[in-house]
């Protein structure tokens, strides 16, 4: 990071940073500046870093993006939100089941499309609004919590996100509070070549319950850059279902870090689906910091052409009696490249941990390539841990079964490919979203040139 020359990406971000408006709360400016200084001290990841060995960011570093500043109203609301056509296309992405919705267009909160929620013990609101309202009791809590679990010590990209701290969502549920329906966090890219740094903070107090869909969509086919950070804190017995859908444009770069901390008996169930982006990377760290916590962490990446999807997960069992389940599937066509690094850590004292992980990859082309690395690191003896990884193609006997019933081989292959993906989509628990994704996957399957 020391030398920004030869890195147009960083240069464009730094130029954009100067244009950011001064925050009304002084600590926000302090944090941003501190993060920027730290980002200067940290090196941007390259392929010599073990965590980035298989994902080359140099194509990102060669691109320059615009940073939208709040003070620049023309830039802020993009071409976007006022034109009825764009409004209509954004509305098409809304979920009828959602009880609440926060919409961000090109990274900036769009109150006109959103339904924030202030009810007894429940706050669902824009991060920018909370940062601007020093008198809001939530303000102080956000100040104390932001960046606590998505650490910025060694992660240059998460640090950069902090340097642009402004836009995002805050969800705060008090003890025993429940959201009546799913919360839809819709991040829309309406114009090309924008860099966005959304930040989501979810705080569920003891026994609170929520269902959150983090949804990244694009209205164009151009380039763009998302560098997102999500932090989730679950109190004792709290329960969160979390879907993360990434359908960015095929020319976009999408980098995301999600950190989750679970207290005693908390539950975290997540499904992360990556279909878009030229290069996507998700770092999902789940820390089980209380006894009896449960995490299920599922993922699906279905990509083709020259796309790359990289998923790094860490399930950190720090306390006894924790359970975790993970199924990660990757479907690769064209000359797509998949990366999966799933690390399960059982710390000393985390006895009676029960953890299992499955990684499955379907290769549909002889130019596709997968690097899978499931890891177990175990420091306690009374545990049950298993992982399995497979890489292969469509099973010959499954294909034969369908063909024997009169289904043509190409159709049978598509059907089996679809079924491989649909298994994970069906875990989302929101009918309209499942339906939409199934259609999208079917479309992708149809367009695949699957060898007969």
């Amino acid at each position, binding site marked *: 990071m020391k030398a920004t020359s030869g890195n147009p990406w960083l240069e464009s971000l730094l130029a954009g940073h100067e244009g950011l408006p001064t925050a009304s709360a002084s600590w926000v400016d302090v944090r941003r500046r501190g993060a920027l200084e730290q980002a200067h001290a940290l090196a941007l990841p390259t392929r010599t870093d073990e965590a980035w060995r298989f994902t080359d960011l140099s194509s990102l570093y060669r691109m320059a993006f615009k940073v939208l500043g709040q003070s620049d109203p023309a830039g802020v609301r993009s071409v976007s939100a006022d034109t009825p056509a764009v409004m209509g296309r954004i509305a098409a992405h809304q979920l009828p089941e959602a009880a609440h919705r926060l919409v961000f267009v090109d990274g900036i909160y769009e109150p006109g499309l959103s339904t924030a929620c202030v009810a007894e013990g429940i706050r669902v609101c824009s991060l920018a609004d909370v940062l601007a309202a020093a008198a809001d009791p939530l303000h102080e809590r956000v100040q104390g919590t932001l960046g606590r679990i998505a650490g910025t010590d060694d992660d240059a990209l998460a640090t950069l996100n902090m340097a642009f701290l402004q836009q995002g969502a805050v969800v705060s549920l008090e003890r025993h509070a429940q959201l009546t329906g799913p919360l839809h966090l819709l991040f829309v890219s309406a114009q090309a070549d924008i860099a966005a740094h959304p930040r989501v903070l979810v705080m569920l107090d003891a026994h609170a319950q929520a269902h959150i869909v983090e949804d990244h969509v694009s209205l164009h086919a151009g380039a763009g850059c998302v560098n997102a950070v999500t932090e989730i804190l679950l109190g004792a017995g709290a329960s969160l279902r979390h879907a993360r859908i990434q359908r960015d444009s095929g020319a976009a770069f999408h980098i995301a870090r999600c950190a989750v901390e679970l207290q005693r008996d908390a539950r975290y169930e997540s499904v992360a689906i990556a279909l878009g982006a030229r290069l996507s990377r998700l770092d999902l760290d789940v820390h089980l910091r209380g006894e009896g916590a449960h995490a299920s962490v599922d993922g699906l990446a279905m990509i083709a052409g020259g796309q790359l999807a990289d998923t790094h997960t860490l399930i950190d069992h720090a306390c006894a009696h924790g359970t975790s389940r993970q199924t990660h599937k990757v479907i690769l066509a064209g000359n797509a490249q998949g990366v999966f690094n799933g690390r399960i850590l059982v710390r000393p*004292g985390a006895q009676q941990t029960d953890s299992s992980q499955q990684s499955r990859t379907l290769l549909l082309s002889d130019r596709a*390539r997968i*690097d899978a690395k499931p890891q177990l690191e*175990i420091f306690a003896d009374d545990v049950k*841990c298993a992982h*399995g*990884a*497979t*890489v292969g193609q469509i099973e010959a006997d499954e294909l034969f079964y369908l063909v024997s019933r009169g289904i043509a081989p190409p159709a049978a292959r598509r059907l089996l490919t679809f079924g491989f993906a649909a298994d994970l989509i069906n875990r989302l628990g929101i009918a309209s979203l499942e339906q939409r994704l199934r259609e999208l996957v079917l479309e992708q399957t149809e367009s695949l040139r699957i060898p007969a």
Partner: protein
Amino acid sequence: MSSTLQQLIDQPYQHGFVTDIESDVVARGLNEDVIRLISSKKDEPEWLLEFRLAAYRHWLTMTLPEWSTVDYPAIDFQAISYYAAPKAKKKLASMDEVDPELLRTFEKLGVPIHEQKALAGVAVDVIFDSVSVTTTYKKRLAEAGVIFCSLSEAVHEHPELVRRYLGSVVGANDNYYAALNSAVFTEGSFCFIPRGVKCPMELSTYFRINTQESGQFERTLIVAEEGADVSYLEGCTAPQFDTNQLHAAVVELVALERASIKYSTVQNWYAGDANGVGGIYNFVTKRGVCKGAYSRISWTQVETGSAITWKYPSCVLEGDHSVGEFYSVALTNHHQQADTGTKMIHLGRNTRSTIISKGISAGQSKNSYRGLVQVGPKAEGARNYSQCDSMLIGDRCAASTFPYLRVMNESARVEHEATTSKIGADQLFYFASRGVDNESAVSMIINGFVKDVFTQLPMEFAVEASKLLGLKLEGSVG
């Protein structure tokens, strides 16, 4: 329960003694003069000296590898003596001429020197420190056309073979310790099985480190020509003393078309005392290349000793339809560390590989499986199955699994499975309810756990290895 386990863990090293034989030791330190001295002491041809010097010069430019989980104090490469040879100069014609002190050492170790003739089928090339003292069964092997001798002998008698294959699998620049080995290796074995020959007996070498503070840098080279077949056994023990000893060996296997090489190891070097003081650093580069179609290389290893075991016996599957296998049991106790596994590099079509790894950790030890299965773009129909199981005994040890799967061909099928388990109180209770005491129960459970690997060992080794595990774990489970 844990006290019995503790007793088992605390068994002192059985083979700890230092034989008092005068050694011809080169002064400590490493520079080009030392390499020239080693080369001239061994009366080597010019090309081999050049090989050593090139490796040494490259080694100087390399940095210590730090990517592994093993943790050890910095090694002072200038504090090591790179050459030691027993004083006895002349070649011995019969066993009677062997130094009686040496014979007593072998007796304590249980090397069947006297029983060799009775134990037909085992030729032993005994390496005592760095010079081969006695080689037996040479005649019978010679009749079959098999060349089995020390590497230095082979350099003189079969220079064209050695020159052709030495460094062809593990290049002098391959890695830090392989480069060091290439520069200073002093002894080792050479084995050549000509076309169509099935080696009439199992070949076995006992390596033994004897002189304090002298690192051992053996180099083994096995070449099996078209259709040849050989099984090679390697066993190790070392005397007990406090100074850490570096052991950086290189093993190279070459299998041509339809050849088969089976390489088995039982490693029980000094592991350090219960507090982790002393013990051998076992940093070995082992690799085989299946050059020809339908060739096969099989590694079987039982790693129970050494303070640190750090090695990845690997197969490069170049020939179409070639097969690579890796069967491993790694047991660590006290403060031992093991970072071991394999690499299966599939390059040819329809190549197959199997990996079965069983790790047992007890005490405060660390045991890691690290492996790579790579399928190249041209390896149509490649197939791999890996299974890596860990067993933890006690709550202060660690077991890790780091498999890398890298697939660049859609017709490949790669499967990896790993599990972790322990010896549960319920299992012991089940045995106890049937009148089986804890010790026997643990022994049975462990032997069941490693069965898939032990069945791959040659008979004599399987018995020895089974005893070794029992010995190592005595009292450690309860």
